[in-house]
């Protein structure tokens, strides 16, 4: 990767403490267009203050319509039960868990960008972390819909999922169950991500509060900014809080998809019962998450004219992460195939041969093409710095990652030990409908965020304007 245009080591060298003294003249600016600190406020807070544009209203209308269409399937699922889905006695988990894992995975990029890249002092995260964290939170909400709906009677979920004494089965919840670990992992992940996101938003809300001209904005952003004054003492504590939260969120993000993979890995189903799952799932999660960040940011950047903040350099960096994680995922696919053969366990060998050549071969090869081959195109600098190509590949990757979960879940289940139990999975309209519902939910939330919240972390970007902007004072 010798042709990477940003010498990262130098960025680390002039780590935050010395940002006011040392500068490297060769570094490509992270913010272009000769922006000043005041320009950042105007560009980002200005968006929040404007009246919604026609494009935004149209996008919001489409999202709400999608949400409404999907709501019907959610209603049917709750009213009639899980029988409205295409599950059968052999394939007891299919689209629901596929979608759950897919959405949780997408969420991972946000935390990676805001926490892991903060610990590594990667300053290019600063103009993309806000939107990615928002994406994380909305994706986790969408993910949580599936296990909750799959309970059939979600209103009893408190007794099944929380450690409360109950009379429905065992007296307490079972701490041996990875499904229970999931409850704790997903809810912790959601709450910590939300807090991290909100902490970052407070100074920016204060900026909007101080610029607000009407009463409602003053009141709402005043409450949201928690009385922020920008005092040096508060900033000092704030910096510690961000750093410690990043330190906590880093193992957290790794734990979440590890625990999600335990849902499968701790079982005895051939194709699931494998120790490679945790790292392989985490890499896949970051892979799909970055793809979704790119899909969303390329659109946001265009609509909001944020080309000076989200530069080609940012997109290139994300594409490099996609090559790395995509290759890890590719190696994992090959490794699990090899280990299945090498283990000598017939059921295990059959599960993998069946994946690649059985009735679901098309899903397997879609997954291989989308996840293993397509990201390799990013080795070419021309492709990874091309917006259209990036946009298309980011969508292909997300399709591929959906197929990955489908392949793991459905192909491992559909041919049970007894051939008399073999079955195929056919989704019903409501399998599709619930998935559509989560898309509606995700985009409605994202568009609302993009309108009413500052889409770029103003305070953080302002802090690097002098060191890495184009205009030197």
């Amino acid at each position, binding site marked *: 990767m010798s042709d990477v245009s940003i010498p990262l080591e130098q960025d680390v060298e002039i780590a*935050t*403490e010395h940002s*006011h*003294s040392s500068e490297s003249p060769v570094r490509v600016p992270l913010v272009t267009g000769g922006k*000043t*600190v005041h320009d950042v*406020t105007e560009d980002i807070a200005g968006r929040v203050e404007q009246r919604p544009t026609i494009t935004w209203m149209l996008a919001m209308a489409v999202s709400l319509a999608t949400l409404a269409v999907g709501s019907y399937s959610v209603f049917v699922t709750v009213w009639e039960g899980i029988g409205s889905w295409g599950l059968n006695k052999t394939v007891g988990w299919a689209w629901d868990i596929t979608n759950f894992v897919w959405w949780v995975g997408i969420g991972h990029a946000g935390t990676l960008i805001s926490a892991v890249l903060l610990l590594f002092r990667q300053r290019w995260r600063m103009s993309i972390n806000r939107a990615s964290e928002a994406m994380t939170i909305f994706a986790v909400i969408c993910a949580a819909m599936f296990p909750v709906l799959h309970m059939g009677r979600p209103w009893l979920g408190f007794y099944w999922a929380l*450690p409360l004494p109950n009379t429905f089965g065992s*007296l*307490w*919840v*079972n*701490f*041996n169950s990875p499904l229970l*670990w999931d409850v*704790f*992992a997903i809810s*912790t992940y959601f*709450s*910590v991500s939300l*807090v*991290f996101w909100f*902490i970052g938003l407070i*100074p920016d809300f204060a*900026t909007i*509060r*101080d610029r607000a001209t009407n009463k409602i904005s003053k009141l709402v952003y005043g*409450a*949201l900014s*928690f*009385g*922020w*004054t*920008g*005092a*040096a*003492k*508060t*900033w*000092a*504590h*704030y*910096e*510690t*809080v961000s*750093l*410690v*939260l990043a330190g*906590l*969120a880093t*193992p*957290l993000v790794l*734990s979440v998809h590890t*625990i999600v993979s335990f849902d499968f890995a701790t079982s005895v189903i051939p194709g699931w019962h494998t120790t490679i799952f945790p790292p392989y799932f985490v890499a896949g999660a970051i892979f799909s998450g970055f793809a979704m960040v790119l899909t969303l940011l390329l659109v946001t950047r265009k609509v909001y004219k944020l080309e000076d903040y989200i530069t080609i350099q940012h997109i290139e960096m994300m594409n490099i992460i996609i090559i790395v994680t995509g290759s890890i995922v590719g190696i994992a696919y090959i490794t699990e195939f090899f280990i299945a053969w090498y283990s000598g366990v017939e059921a295990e060998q059959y599960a993998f041969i069946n994946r690649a050549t059985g009735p679901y071969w098309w899903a397997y090869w879609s997954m291989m093409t989308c996840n293993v081959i397509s990201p390799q195109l990013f080795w070419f600098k021309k492709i990874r710095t091309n917006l259209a190509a990036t946009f298309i590949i980011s969508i292909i990757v997300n399709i591929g990652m959906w197929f990955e979960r489908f392949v793991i879940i459905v192909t491992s289940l559909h041919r049970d030990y007894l051939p008399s139990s073999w079955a195929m999975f056919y989704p019903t309209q409501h399998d599709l409908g619930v998935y559509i519902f989560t898309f509606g939910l995700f985009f409605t939330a994202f568009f609302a965020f993009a309108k009413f919240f500052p889409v770029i972390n103003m*305070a*953080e970007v*302002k*802090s690097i304007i*002098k060191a890495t902007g184009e205009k030197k*004072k």
Partner: protein
Amino acid sequence: MSQGTNYVLGVYDDEDVLMDAIKKVRGEGLKIEEVYSPFPVHGIEDALGYKRSWLSIAAFMFGITGTSLALTMQIGMMGVDWPMIIGGKDYLPFPSFVPVTFELTVLLASFGMVGTFFGISNLKPWAKPRIYDIRITDDKHIMAIDLDKNEYKEEDIKKVLEGSGATEVNNKTFEA
């Protein structure tokens, strides 16, 4: 001079000028009430003589609390209150307790630390902040000097601030 607390405010455009100004102003023996910035200025807490934030210690303490609570809960439920053999595992399957223990440690550490931060920094939705200058959240750094806490005359303080690179020097009074 009017009633209430009277401040002289030095307005700075640039964080490097501000850092030098803090040293200069403190060198003159003036007490700085507080400095307000639109973004974190690195090293400013040392220049102002603030102690290192102890919130990381708070996070650790809350984390330990989370670990203990999680272990107590799991051992209590599965080992003491209603012991059961599940999947041929022990009554107290410690490896099974790792995920929940980890998650609750992180959860309590994060929320405890953030709650403490809100508490000590007086951050709450209904807070009525003292805004010295609304440009603080845009692009200006403000150094606030309390007139009553310094023995210098107002004119002298203003001179020091002007000499330190302040682009404006203003007065601000908050009613008592």
